[in-house]
């Protein structure tokens, strides 16, 4: 069957769809956005990238009502004068050039918006708007309406400043490097001694310029080395610092003794290249930064019911036993008890499970779910900052990643330092017989030339490139350390729901009386009028049986979170939850929709989740790891899982998050290195304590607090390949290591024989750094 996709968002159009001219839309929301863009002459949105739109949510006026509260609003306004205000909003849905086009043309849609500038990398928009007749909350509603719901979380400000410091430092080092090298040319050509006066002049000038380099540009290395030594450990920064200091002192001595500029050019060059490595690393983080404060997902404000009235208040002000009001589509801000009769909570953006969960009066409701349907009242049980989920996460964070897992470089640097010191000592002894006056010079030049600059660059570039490659393939890592940990993995633990099985698409089964063709067609028409995931699944199920229909429905009614009803060709049909159809649910663990035709029960649709494509192939290709499955579900799928997993895999069912956590702790105690794949929050604890926690997500901008990486759900099948890319980085590193060590040996031979002239240093140092950078980039590029 030809699948029609929505002109706006690209989703499959199920059923009749909505049409404007020839263009089909999957829902009214998409159609509205199209209409809005068309009316405002922004049709080019669709010509930039096909189906670029974001399916808008059902927006409610209340959703951003908290922005009317002065104190909350002011937090998000960067600047304001009498007429205008400027705000910077985080819009996680920004994903393509069409988004930039649309947002930067917001002025055409709303004349009160004066300008809008998008920062794609940060997914932020800076918007200036007229204060008169327009408010921040109206702006938020507008953005939400066109599919870019702003995320009002607490933004971390430190991130921004950090970035720029590197650029400043890099600038200073580059400036000094260039200038000193220019002045050192006579030295390189051996003309240094021709004009002692001029030589002194340039030497002192070089010294002056090098002061900001040593004090400002290089200080990170000194601090890092000092910290490492204070904790009696070694990192790569220790030998680097020794090299830098030796280089600097030797050159300063040479300048003040009137012997020329020494190695000042190499010194500035060292720092410059090292900083480029750091800057590259930093840039990689920035483009892939997905880690946001967990609070950014919880709403900023809630409606509190007091005895007299309702008031909007910040979440931090909520006390235990406060009564709060949550409306349709709002997030439950804290763990609480349901006061209203019943509620349907959608934990999809927490667990990936798209079927809402029913809760009844007196039930405990965890924070993080989204309410679907009528508004409810809740009694606060825990203050938000101490919420169950965040607590689990915070506990984990404190002992995150055992400190004994050194970076490969740190391990190396211990050997490195010992060898260098031994060589220096040996050469010192040897030279004491040859020419005792040159001992200091020889030892210093050994320390200088052994400075592992190339080594320091190899890791950030290799890991950075691998990280980017993985990002393009659908696996987003939190940082480069994750790659090193991936390479040591022995065991892989899978979660079932949302990981091995699809979160949204379901396998449907009908249990009950035989239905005739007319009844099936009527069911089709009715389900087709709803956009609920279960209705969509029913439509797909019926379509597979060649049922389709477009009958007129009368008395259509959809009770949000319960079911749908309507009359088609004199058949009165109700589809929905047991309570909606006045039935007793048969099995609490079963997801099902009952069918009532003319008030008699016909049967029910049972939904079971489907395995993702390629999972069984994946398991075969992962057979060199020990595989485990920890499922929160009953063992109804056990036989399917057993058939695809290798024989010695361990499968466990009915596991609580706590069980999962303990299971992984046990594995780790037995010396295993565990990779856990699960969904964001539900498995947060388990993901957090694993050596590598990968969250599976349909939407990579989703909230995953304690994971080390996010994998796009549809890329899960290529996990084995992704892991092999990560392992490949080991090979690349080894090659880089080989090269930098051979450069070091060449350099050392110059140093030991007493021939390390500034010229040799000036040539060796950049060449070794550049080779390593090129090698690591080239290797990763070739691997594809």
């Amino acid at each position, binding site marked *: 069957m030809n699948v029609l996709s929505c002109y706006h968002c690209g989703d499959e159009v199920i059923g009749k769809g909505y049409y404007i*001219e020839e263009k089909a839309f999957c829902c009214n929301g998409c159609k509205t956005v199209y209409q809005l*863009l*068309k009316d405002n*002459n*922004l*049709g*080019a*949105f*669709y*010509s930039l990238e096909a189906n670029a739109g974001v399916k808008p949510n059902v927006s409610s006026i209340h959703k951003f009502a908290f922005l009317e509260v002065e104190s909350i609003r002011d937090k998000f306004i960067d600047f304001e004068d009498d007429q205008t205000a400027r705000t910077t909003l985080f819009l996680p849905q920004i994903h393509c*050039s069409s988004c*930039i*086009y649309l947002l*930067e043309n917001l002025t*055409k849609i709303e004349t009160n918006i004066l300008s809008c*500038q*998008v*920062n*794609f*990398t*940060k997914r932020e928009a800076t918007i200036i708007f007229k204060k008169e007749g327009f408010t921040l909350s109206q702006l938020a509603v507008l953005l939400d309406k066109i599919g870019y719901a702003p995320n009002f979380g607490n933004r971390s400000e430190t991130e921004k400043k950090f*970035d*720029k410091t590197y*650029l*400043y430092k890099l*600038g*200073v080092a580059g*400036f000094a490097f*260039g*200038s000193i090298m*220019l*002045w050192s040319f006579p030295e390189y050509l051996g003309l240094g001694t021709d*004009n002692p006066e*001029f030589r002194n*002049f*340039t030497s002192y*000038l070089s010294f002056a310029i090098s002061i900001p380099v040593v004090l400002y540009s290089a200080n990170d290395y000194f601090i890092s080395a000092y910290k490492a030594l204070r904790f009696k450990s070694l990192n790569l920064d220790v030998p680097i610092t020794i090299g830098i200091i030796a280089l600097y002192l030797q050159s300063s001595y040479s300048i003040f003794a009137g012997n020329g500029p020494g190695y000042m050019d190499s010194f500035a060059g060292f720092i410059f290249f090292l900083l480029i490595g750091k800057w590259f690393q930093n840039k990689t983080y920035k483009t892939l930064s997905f880690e946001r404060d967990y609070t950014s997902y919880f709403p900023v404000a809630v409606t509190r019911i007091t005895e007299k009235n309702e008031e909007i208040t910040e979440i931090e002000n909520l006390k235990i036993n406060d009564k709060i009001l949550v409306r349709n589509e709002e997030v439950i801000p804290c763990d609480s008890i349901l006061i209203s009769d019943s509620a349907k909570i959608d934990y999809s953006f927490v667990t990936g499970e798209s079927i809402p969960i029913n809760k009844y009066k007196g039930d405990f409701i965890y924070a993080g779910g989204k309410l679907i349907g009528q508004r409810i009242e809740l009694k606060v049980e825990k203050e938000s900052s101490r919420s169950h989920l965040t607590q689990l996460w915070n506990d984990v964070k404190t002992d995150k990643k055992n400190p004994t897992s050194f970076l490969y470089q740190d391990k190396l640097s211990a050997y490195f330092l010992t060898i260098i010191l031994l060589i220096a000592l040996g050469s010192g002894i040897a030279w004491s017989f040859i020419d005792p006056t040159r001992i200091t010079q020889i030892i210093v030049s050994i320390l200088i030339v052994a400075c592992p600059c190339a080594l320091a660059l190899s890791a950030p570039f290799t890991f950075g490139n691998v990280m980017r490659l993985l990002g393009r393939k659908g696996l987003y890592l939190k940082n480069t350390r994750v790659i090193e940990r991936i390479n040591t993995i022995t065991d892989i633990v899978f979660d079932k729901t949302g990981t091995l099985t699809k979160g949204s698409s379901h396998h449907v089964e009908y249990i009950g009386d035989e239905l005739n063709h007319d009844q099936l067609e009527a069911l089709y028409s009715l389900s087709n009028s709803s956009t609920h995931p279960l209705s969509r699944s029913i439509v797909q199920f019926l379509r597979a049986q060649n049922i389709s229909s477009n009958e007129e429905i009368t008395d259509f009614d959809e009770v949000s979170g319960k079911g749908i009803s309507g009359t088609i060709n004199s058949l009165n049909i109700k589809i929905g939850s047991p309570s909606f159809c006045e039935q007793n649910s048969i099995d609490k663990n079963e997801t099902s929709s009952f069918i009532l035709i003319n008030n008699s029960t016909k049967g029910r649709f049972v939904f079971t989740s489907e395995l993702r494509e390629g999972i069984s192939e994946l398991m075969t290709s992962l057979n060199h790891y020990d595989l485990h499955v920890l499922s929160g579900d009953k063992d109804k799928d056990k036989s399917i899982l057993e058939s695809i997993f290798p024989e010695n895999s361990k499968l466990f069912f009915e596991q609580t998050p706590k069980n999962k956590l303990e299971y992984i702790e046990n594995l780790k105690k037995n010396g295993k290195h565990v990779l856990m794949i699960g969904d964001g929050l539900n498995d947060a604890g388990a993901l957090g304590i694993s050596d590598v926690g990968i969250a599976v997500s349909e939407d990579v901008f989703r909230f995953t607090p304690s994971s080390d990486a996010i994998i796009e759900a549809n890329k899960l099948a290529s996990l084995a390949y992704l892991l092999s890319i990560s392992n490949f980085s080991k090979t690349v590193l080894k090659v880089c290591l080989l090269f930098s060590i051979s450069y070091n040996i060449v350099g050392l031979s110059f140093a030991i024989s007493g021939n390390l002239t500034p010229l040799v240093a000036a040539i060796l140092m950049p060449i070794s750094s550049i080779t390593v950078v090129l090698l690591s980039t080239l290797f990763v590029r070739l691997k594809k």
Partner: protein
Amino acid sequence: MGIIYLMLTVSLVIALFFLISFFWATKNGQFDDDYTPSVRILFEDELNQKSNNQTDGSSEV
């Protein structure tokens, strides 16, 4: 020989000028976002050519 001191000074001044420009650019956010401007420059400025713009933007290339 005097000229070389002058040239040295000039080279230093030029280098300093670039360093300061670099600082200024960094501070002004020139390096904050290296993707969006590359896309932005390709957008048609429709406001000025509203008259000869067709109603359905999707067919324009």
